[in-house]
């Protein structure tokens, strides 16, 4: 080979062939420097540590987490010598490593999605109070799944639950979950709620839930979403874009269905309260009837009182007109003709007197 002269192009091709054979895929950890995006399509940066620097290159659609200078990242790449003589790592995937870089990547993406309004409260849909079908995306081998199904079975019955088994950490996890979200959204009869759950873990373990494409797939889901990842204190972009966030997988089970014991107790309490209301209504009706009767009696009494009062007045008036009363006051009643010589009768209160008319004069 050393004696065979090669063209420059052949040399580059041969080198790439050798590199591809020897290093089909390399994982390299380093710090990002001189990060830039060209023409809105291409991403380039330098990956460096204290000893060396290597150029990195990728298409922007492969970038799932925003990068910035100074972030420590793990890249999965293929080494390549370009026709222009530059040695590059052609990146397939890149993800932040270490708490600082993960946090930085999370903050950058959070800011980006927030600007797009993906966390806006007005986007949030409410979940059906009692769904009849649920789609679940999780690892069926996880304790989180076991907890979720245990709690949900304790709380409610008659549900149709379809579970999509996916990885929930590691490089393929985000894509698998995206595929599962799309699967449920593509069903002819979609579940009424889509639940995505994962138990607790380190920031690195939960990183798949901070993937931009997964966050967008959840935000675009036609089925209302409920995401419960990690513990109470863990916040991921997946739960921020979800319609409802659960603090834990157990909490997701508590949110998605009501507790049958509460519903049964409430149903009985409602029925009992209707009995009380019926009795109360009967009492009210009786009270109202009694009041109406009382009012009628009062009205009759008033009428009677008025009549007796009028009768009393009339009695007084009649008594005043009685001639006996006039005689008792000293007057006398005279009967007979007022002609001279005739006899007349004079009645006083106590006596009847007969007298003769001696004189009659005009007044």
């Amino acid at each position, binding site marked *: 080979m050393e004696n065979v002269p090669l063209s420059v192009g052949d040399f580059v091709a041969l080198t790439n062939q050798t590199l591809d054979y020897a290093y089909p895929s390399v994982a390299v950890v380093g710090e990002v420097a001189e990060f830039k995006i060209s023409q809105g399509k291409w991403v380039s940066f330098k990956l460096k540590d204290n000893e060396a620097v290597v150029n990195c290159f990728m298409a922007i659609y492969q970038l799932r987490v925003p990068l910035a200078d100074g972030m420590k990242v793990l890249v999965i790449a293929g080494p390549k010598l370009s026709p222009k003589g530059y040695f590059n790592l052609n990146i397939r995937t890149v993800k932040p490593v270490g708490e600082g870089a993960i946090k930085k990547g999370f903050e950058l993406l959070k800011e980006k999605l927030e600007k797009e309004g993906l966390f806006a409260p007005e986007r949030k849909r409410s979940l059906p109070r*009692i769904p*009849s079908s649920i789609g679940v995306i999780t690892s*069926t081998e996880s304790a989180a799944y076991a907890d979720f*199904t245990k709690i*949900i*079975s304790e709380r*409610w*019955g*008659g*549900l*149709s*639950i*379809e*579970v*999509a*088994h*996916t990885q929930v950490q590691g490089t*393929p*996890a*985000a*894509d*698998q*979950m*995206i*595929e*599962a979200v*799309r*699967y449920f959204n593509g069903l002819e009869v979609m579940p009424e709620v889509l639940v995505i759950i994962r138990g607790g873990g380190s920031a690195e373990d939960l990183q798949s839930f901070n993937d931009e*494409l997964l966050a967008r797939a959840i935000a675009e889901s036609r089925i209302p979403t409920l995401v419960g990842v990690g513990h109470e204190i863990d916040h991921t972009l997946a739960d921020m874009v979800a319609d409802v966030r659960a603090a834990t997988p157990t909490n997701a089970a508590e949110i998605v269905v009501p507790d*049958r014991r509460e*519903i*049964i107790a409430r*149903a*009985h309490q*409602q*029925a009992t*309260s*209707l*009995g009380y*209301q*019926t009795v109360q*209504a*009967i009492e009210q*009706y009786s009270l109202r009837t009694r009041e109406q009767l009382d009012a009628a009696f009062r009205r009759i009494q008033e009428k009677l009182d008025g009549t007796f009062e009028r009768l009393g007045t009339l009695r007084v008036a009649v008594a005043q007109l009685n001639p006996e009363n006039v005689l008792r006051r000293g007057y006398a009643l005279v009967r007979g003709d007022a002609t001279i010589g005739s006899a007349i009768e004079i009645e006083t209160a106590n006596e009847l007197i007969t007298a003769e008319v001696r004189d009659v004069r005009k007044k």
Partner: protein
Amino acid sequence: MSEKNKTVQEKLTELSELVAWFQSAAFSLEEAFEKFKKAEALAEEIEKDLTSLKNDIKIVKKKFDGAI
């Protein structure tokens, strides 16, 4: 639909409607007792249904390998 074929959700809705009727202007003493008996029967049925119903959990057969 007969009472037996109704879902728990439908029975809960029916119970809520009965409760609402008692608060409404349509309330009449003549019908109240009958409706109360119906509510009691519904509560019993809801308890029976919820206690006996099991969830049907199925694992999706499709393999999710992340080909998106």
